[in-house]
């Protein structure tokens, strides 16, 4: 025989448990603290996300990779090879964590995920880029290194000062026919060879003391450049005394490889 279900049985059981103290209401303060904790976590994650995004922009500028896409397809390959992909993955993980934290709120779950994710990306890129143009990273890097900060100093040393392959940043020290000598920011003197295939800005006039980004693989102490760009406004490097020698008059085509003289290798 089937026992008919008593609709009041559930009510009686629940009320009995409440009155026996087996079920206790969580206080309003508990939920307030939980909301504050979630909000604080969301703020911290957002700040970390913006910091890492701004660091990516800082690194791309500092390494010179920012300028290499202007050198054509080889420059784009150099840019992609130099990109700090590990940091980008960390940024993506933080964005996902942020989505999870705010998912419980209607403002997040009522819209398709792609909208909120795009919103996070746009804000991170905009604020991150703006932050990278302030002296924050440069000052923080100097402080971290001078105070030998164990984690952050190493982060800036290992990542911020890494020499990406396929490009060099440095100061022009001497002009030569068909190229120039350059003192890199790491203190190496290298010889840059310019050919008919080298991408240069129109009306290019290079001078001693100019800070340049050179695209090209270093072989020994010379680089066959596929691109050169002057970046004195974007960088601060120790400058040798400026000379007035001009490489080639504006408007003249660059030297063909057959016109290049034999380059003496600088002896240290």
């Amino acid at each position, binding site marked *: 025989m089937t026992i008919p279900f008593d609709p009041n049985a*559930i009510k009686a059981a*629940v009320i009995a448990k*409440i*009155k026996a103290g087996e*079920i206790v209401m*969580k206080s309003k303060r508990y939920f307030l603290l939980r909301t504050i904790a979630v909000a604080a976590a969301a703020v911290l994650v957002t700040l970390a996300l913006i910091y890492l995004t701004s660091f990516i922009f800082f690194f791309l500028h500092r390494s010179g990779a920012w300028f290499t896409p202007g050198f054509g397809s080889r420059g784009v390959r150099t840019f992609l090879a130099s990109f700090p992909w590990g940091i980008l993955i960390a940024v993506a993980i933080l964005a996902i964590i942020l989505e999870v934290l705010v998912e419980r709120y209607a403002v997040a*779950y009522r819209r*398709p*995920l792609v909208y909120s994710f795009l919103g996070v990306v746009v804000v991170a890129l905009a604020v991150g880029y703006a932050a990278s143009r302030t002296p924050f990273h440069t000052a923080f890097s100097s402080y971290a290194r001078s105070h030998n900060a164990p984690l952050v100093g190493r982060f800036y040393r290992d990542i911020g000062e890494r020499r990406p392959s396929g490009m060099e940043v440095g100061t022009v020290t001497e002009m030569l026919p068909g190229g120039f000598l350059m003192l890199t920011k790491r203190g190496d003197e290298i010889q840059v060879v310019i050919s008919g295939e080298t991408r240069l800005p129109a009306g290019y006039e290079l001078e001693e003391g100019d800070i340049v980004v050179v695209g090209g693989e270093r072989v020994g102490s010379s680089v066959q450049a596929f691109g050169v760009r002057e970046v004195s406004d974007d960088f601060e490097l120790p400058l040798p005394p400026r000379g007035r020698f001009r490489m080639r008059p504006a408007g003249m085509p660059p030297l063909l490889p057959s016109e290049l003289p034999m380059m003496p290798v600088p002896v240290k």
Partner: protein
Amino acid sequence: MEQADEEIALLVQQGNTDAFGSLVERYTPKLLRYARKFLLGREDAEDMVQEVFIKAYTNINSFDISRRFSPWVYRIAHNEFINAISRKEREPFLFFDPDELFPHPIAAEQTDRSIKDSDLKRVLDECLTSVGAKYREVLVLYYYEELNYTDIADVLHLPVSTVGVRLKRGREALRKVYEKLNHL
């Protein structure tokens, strides 16, 4: 005049335990129907619904009385039932839906449910057991519990457009099952 659910919830928050009994009385038949239609007898519906009310009482101070009580308690029920299914079927990502990622244009919610739905409920009763949990739940909430798209979105924490997509696909799945059963 009967007190609104939200007014009763406020009394419970202020310490009136007996007022909670009124909410239990009102929602027991609805949540039992939801449990039986959604869980399909795999779990003990009465035990599950009792657990839902225990969770509702424990967390009553998280309920915002400016919002509606019904989607809030259905949300607690949804979480309990989903956990039970996930535990039993060992599928933690049972309800991940790629349709939650992107927006969808959907038809406006139907306002006149009467004629079509009586036929549809007959079909539902016959075929619901053969429809997957993801679509079964939204069909139950829409046709049996008569929640609107916005309430369902609040219960399931989904975009409103995704609710429409799931409902549409749920109806298609029902039609296929019905056609298959009627050809046998």
